[in-house]
């Protein structure tokens, strides 16, 4: 039997790769355990996905302010469009059509607890970008950039090209939260492939989630608080995720004639719909 320091030197030697050069029960055990440890590495996909969380922040260029003349023209156009929407909503047959579109913004799950399925996609077409310009160059449509002020930086932009979807993350330079995620997808792709991001099958919200309708400019959007969460407190036999309406993740979705948009905010401070509407307005005012 070795002394503690002899064992220590032997383990050092084994950790350096000399696993078969010692005899005895202690050596056999330490060799086996070190070999066992070395046989386990992080899953490559998991590793890259986690590493992506820790990208260095890069400052985003301030958005160019539009001219006052355009503001006035835009405001006038918004009033006309808003009047048209009001007429549409006042006529039953038109309202039915409009309501159908609004309902589709946040489809509901019928289950409080469920397994979330993912649409598989090729890792090769999943890309991330350090700058807004690089992200813009990667897609064929114009990306709407929110005006979040100087307190936030562009963390990363992402796209899955086959789904024509983009996501941008913004947060303060030195902290993780608040964390804004702004997503944009052509309506035609959202209709044919499902809404938005990371291949989640249907982007449902929980059955008891409260949907608040909001109006800004000519747009009608929907605001929801909550998230699907997972944890060990799920009862045995329960599914992977359950919906929590009080979870501090806030969503605003809306659409224009061509695109579907979502702002998702992770914040430890209480958030009102107006807070996200102000960001949405900054995207749509060009």
């Amino acid at each position, binding site marked *: 039997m070795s002394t503690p*320091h002899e064992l220590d030197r032997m383990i050092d030697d084994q950790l350096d790769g000399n696993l078969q050069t010692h005899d005895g*029960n202690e050596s056999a055990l330490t060799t086996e355990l070190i070999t066992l440890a070395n*046989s386990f590495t992080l899953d490559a996909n998991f590793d890259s996905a986690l590493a992506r969380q*820790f990208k*260095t*922040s890069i400052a985003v260029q301030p958005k160019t302010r539009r001219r006052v003349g355009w503001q006035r023209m835009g405001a006038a156009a918004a009033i006309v469009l808003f009047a048209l929407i009001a007429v549409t909503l006042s006529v039953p047959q038109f309202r039915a059509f409009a309501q159908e579109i609004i309902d589709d913004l946040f489809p509901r799950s019928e289950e409080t607890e469920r397994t979330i399925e993912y649409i598989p996609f090729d890792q090769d077409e999943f890309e991330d970008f350090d700058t807004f310009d690089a992200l813009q160059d990667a897609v064929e449509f114009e990306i709407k950039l929110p005006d979040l002020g100087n307190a936030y930086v562009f963390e990363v932009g992402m796209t899955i090209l086959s789904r024509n979807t983009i996501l941008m993350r913004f947060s303060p330079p030195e902290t993780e939260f608040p964390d804004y995620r702004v997503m944009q997808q052509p309506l035609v792709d959202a209709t044919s492939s499902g809404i938005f991001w990371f291949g989640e099958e249907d982007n449902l919200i929980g059955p008891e989630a409260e949907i608040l309708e909001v109006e800004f400019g000519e747009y009608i959007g929907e605001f929801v608080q909550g998230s699907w969460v*997972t944890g060990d407190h799920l009862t045995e036999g329960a599914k992977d995720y359950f919906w929590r309406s009080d979870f501090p993740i806030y969503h605003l979705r809306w659409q224009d004639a061509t695109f579907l948009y979502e702002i998702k905010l992770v914040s430890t401070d209480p958030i009102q719909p107006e807070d996200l509407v102000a960001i949405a307005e900054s995207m749509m005012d060009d």
Partner: protein
Amino acid sequence: MEDQLTGKPYQQFLTQSQQEDKADSLNAQTTVSRDFSAVYEAHKLTMYRYVLARVGHVQDAHDITAQVFLKAYQNAATYREDSPVLHWLIGIARHAIIDHYRRARTELPLELVQQLPHDAPPIEETVENRLRLKRVAEALNSLSEDRREALTLRLFAGLKNQEIAGVMGKSADAVAMLVHRGVQDLNARLGKDDQ
């Protein structure tokens, strides 16, 4: 400051401009948060294998490793410059493992979990290795807390006794003794199981 695992000065993880920034005004808290990618790359395998030996389950070890780094990233402001980054990470991991065994893990929102491909193709370790790991983890958990901790950090995380001494707040000689007795205990425990 020197990174205890790699032996390299911690500043080597930073870019030149970051080092200049640091020299000017930044403290260690901003250093960690600014270059967390380097922290993750330097310590991910150590942390994963440490957690793996403690919980004995590959998927749980992945989940807990993610929790540890995400929590460290989000709480970089709590990092104290006078202790190595690895000690700080192991402290977070210990709490995460305790939570795991209490079955009261922090809820992870889908927005974070969905970026971790649980449904990725199966990890290519053999079934035998996984079964062996489970048995070793059970045997480790039957040891006294100090012996288990010292043995796990020495054999699975690959730390030196001096480094473990810093983590555990003991002398290197005391750690050598804990490892020595831990090996004897584990040998007896696994030997009985094999019979």
